[in-house]
């Protein structure tokens, strides 16, 4: 039985190994927080953590994720219990249409795990693979900076 761990829970993967991880997460597991913006690894809206590292889930074959740990935005927090990052995105206005937001949160989470007090340059480099068409990025950077100070 092919298994992987998603947001701390072991799941059985029934999809063929060459199915994209993004499709297994969204279609099999109904974790629709992860978005598909380009399908080419350019926009970052599909970003999840694979063994703690941000990756584009549109470029991971589920066969490559077997026996590994996947974290999606749903694993960071939820409406009842917002993570500090999620709360700061709300308070700082870091989301408008929200399409880039799950990927932004995942990348920002990975950054703060490694660098609890990043500089603005480090924040911008960490989210360089997450494109936003709405905010102009400044409020996203503000939100991450604020979360780092909490």
């Amino acid at each position: 039985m092919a298994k992987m761990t998603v947001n701390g829970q072991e799941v059985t993967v029934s999809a063929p190994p060459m199915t994209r991880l993004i499709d297994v997460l969204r279609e099999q597991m109904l974790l629709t927080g992860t978005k598909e913006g380009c399908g080419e690894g350019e926009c970052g809206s599909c970003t999840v953590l694979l063994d703690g590292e941000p990756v584009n889930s549109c470029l991971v074959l589920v066969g490559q994720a077997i026996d590994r740990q996947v974290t999606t935005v749903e694993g960071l927090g939820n409406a009842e219990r917002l993570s500090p990052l999620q709360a700061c995105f709300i308070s700082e206005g870091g989301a408008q249409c929200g399409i880039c937001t799950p990927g932004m949160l995942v990348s920002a989470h990975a950054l703060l795990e490694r660098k609890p007090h990043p500089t603005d340059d480090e924040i911008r480099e960490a989210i360089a693979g997450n494109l936003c068409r709405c905010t102009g990025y400044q409020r996203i950077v503000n939100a991450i900076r604020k979360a780092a100070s909490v």
Partner: protein
Amino acid sequence: MIFSQPQSLTALFDELASAGDRPVLIAGGTDWIVEQHLKPTAAQRVLDLSRLAELRTLSVDGEGLRIGAGVTYRQLIEDERTRPWPMLAEMAKLVGAWQIQARGTLGGNVATGSPAGDSLPVLMAYGAQVELGSVRGTRLVPFEAFYVGYRRTVMAADEAITAIWLPTPAAGAVTQYRKVGTRRAQAISKVAFAGYAAGETIRLGMASVGPTVMTLPHTTAALKNGSDPVAALHEDITPLDDVRSTATYRMFVAENLVRAFADALAGR
């Protein structure tokens, strides 16, 4: 499509030896999966290398650095042992973004052999060798002999890249890496340059100005004998117009990159 995941190098070589047509080999998949997304092909067999831990090792000895083919750009950035080869991390930081750096591998970049491949000019400048493995054993190919045409290498159908070797740079070596693209992240280069100079040794690599990574022999000779390297550059490259840039712009930028390196050498 058949998907297989060899669990050892022996299993990988056996599979390559017994395959009819050469299978597709993927590690991070950051080139192949995108190609499939844009233009699906009927590949029959896909070999996933992601279980081969021995390809993800990096080691240093007195001779130099051995980088396993499965080492990611992220590893090149984070592993302190690459510091004597500073262009490795400088280049890796400009590949895509974090998400791509976490998956893309050096072996994948070399095997794909795009003329725009980010690591190729750096490996050329550092005098790299490509380690190839198969059921028949291991062999080393000097980087300047590895490509024979557009995306064509000297690899036999049953061979896989197992590692890249870089000799230890000489003390006081001057290196310069520059990638020119549309933006600092998520950009394929319009022109990229890597230069290495130590004593009498000068090695150059340039991307996106020919069918494969270019070694610029006339430019190198000019830098050594004091004649005009920018004039010599015109004997080395004839860039083209394509989706990403124009011949005129590429030539203009390439000249500037060579001038910048010549200035760095004049300063030593």
